[in-house]
């Protein structure tokens, strides 16, 4: 069994019209046993920047704590929030530093940059950035997520439509993966508000 399949996860981020959505599943397992059904995978860095961490849960939590610390330090020194592009470079550098003994995590970063332009990106566990203009996925359900997003994605979706699309893509992919599921957690961020919803999914 691969180290990424120890805890199980499903993460997705999608771009809409002046908004973005980031969503995850809620299961935390130890191989095939489920031990939590309300596990948080998406963390807020600042009001307009969110990071989701898939892979080994312990590395995800450690990595989040290090990144949040670095961002707080940046805020104290620069007196402003970090831009999403800068944050993505920071995550990439921290992951590449551990090139020969990596964190077993795949981050998904989503934020609103200058002029509230949505920015999404994902990386492999050693920091190879992949910037996308439409959607990014990560986790054990990633193969199904790629397929679902490829067919369901449309450019320039409004926040309500984006929420429905992301939720349907996430739920349908989680149905095809044993290691992720037990509901969904979706954040839709627009320049004026953050809408956080939990989804009802199959509890198996």
């Amino acid at each position: 069994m691969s180290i990424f399949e120890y805890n199980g996860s499903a993460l997705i981020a999608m771009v809409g019209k002046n908004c973005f959505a980031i969503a995850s599943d809620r299961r935390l397992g130890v191989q095939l046993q489920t031990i939590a059904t309300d596990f948080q995978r998406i963390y807020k860095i600042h009001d307009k920047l969110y990071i989701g961490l898939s892979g080994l849960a312990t590395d995800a939590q450690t990595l989040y704590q290090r990144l949040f610390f670095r961002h707080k330090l940046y805020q104290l020194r620069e007196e402003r929030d970090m831009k999403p592009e800068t944050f993505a470079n920071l995550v990439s550098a921290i992951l590449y530093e551990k090139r020969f003994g990596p964190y077993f995590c795949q981050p998904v970063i989503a934020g609103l940059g200058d002029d509230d332009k949505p920015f999404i990106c994902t990386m492999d566990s050693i920091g190879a950035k992949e910037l996308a203009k439409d959607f990014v996925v990560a986790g054990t359900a990633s193969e199904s997520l790629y397929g679902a997003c490829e067919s369901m994605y449309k450019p320039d979706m409004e926040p309500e439509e984006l929420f429905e699309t992301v939720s349907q893509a996430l739920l349908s992919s989680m149905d095809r993966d044993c290691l992720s599921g037990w509901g969904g957690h979706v954040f839709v961020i627009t320049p004026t508000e953050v809408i956080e919803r939990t989804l009802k999914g199959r509890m198996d």
Partner: protein
Amino acid sequence: MVVVKRFVLQVHRKSDMSKAVVDLPPKGGFSFDLCRRNEMLISKGVHPPSFRKTGTTIVGLVFKDGVILGADTRATEGPIVCDKNCEKIHYIAPNIYCCGAGTAADTEAVTDMVSSQLQLHRYHTGRESRVITALTLLKSHLFSYQGYVSAALVLGGVDITGPHLHTIYPHGSTDTLPFATMGSGSLAAMAVFESKFREGLTREEGIELVCEAICSGIFNDLGSGSNVDVCVITKGHKEYLRNHQMPNPRTYVSSKGYTFPKGLTEVLTTKITPLKEKVEVIEGNDAMEE
């Protein structure tokens, strides 16, 4: 004869501070502190993850006025395509570009690092960077990591001494060639070069030949695909033609697409947080000086 003996008095100082380990910020470079834990996991039968590779076709050739580099745009994670349009031609200096094959994180990190080092070197010397400088920096870094930094590069540029094209292998060996190919699609691309290359090509002929070689890799090699990126470097001028050719358009798009009616997804809880406008406090000194 007098033998002088010196006794060194060793003072054992007992530290007043507790044995707290102060975590200094790392000075840069690789950190190996998770290696032992990862080896323990491997011994317990847990497999390490596969890294994103750019199973690739990258090419370069020297033409009449300079150097042309070409690359495909597919990034793979095992058998899955994770990026259909990634950038494999990396910037090193205004007159030097480098295509990268192998582990994506390694090619990006090593080219960024050498690019920064060359920028500092340019500030230091006040001169345009030379291709051979980039070559030496790259090969010494790769050799010192004995091939573990898995980056296979095609480096090309035009400097004061003329156009140069080099290939760099992950273990640190280099070749200087008039035309070169690297990556999983290198055999397909080299077949095209070997039959059609000649000295003194014009710009149009060179771009056409590079595109043909990359297309050969895209269509015949499974690790390469999507579009063709081309970069033309001449004396004092460079042109980065991103997605110069797109021979694989997406034709299966459904015209209607999927439309999900609002309220289709069952929602358990909703929490709406309005984002406050950040208030800027402007220091008003006038108020105090009355």
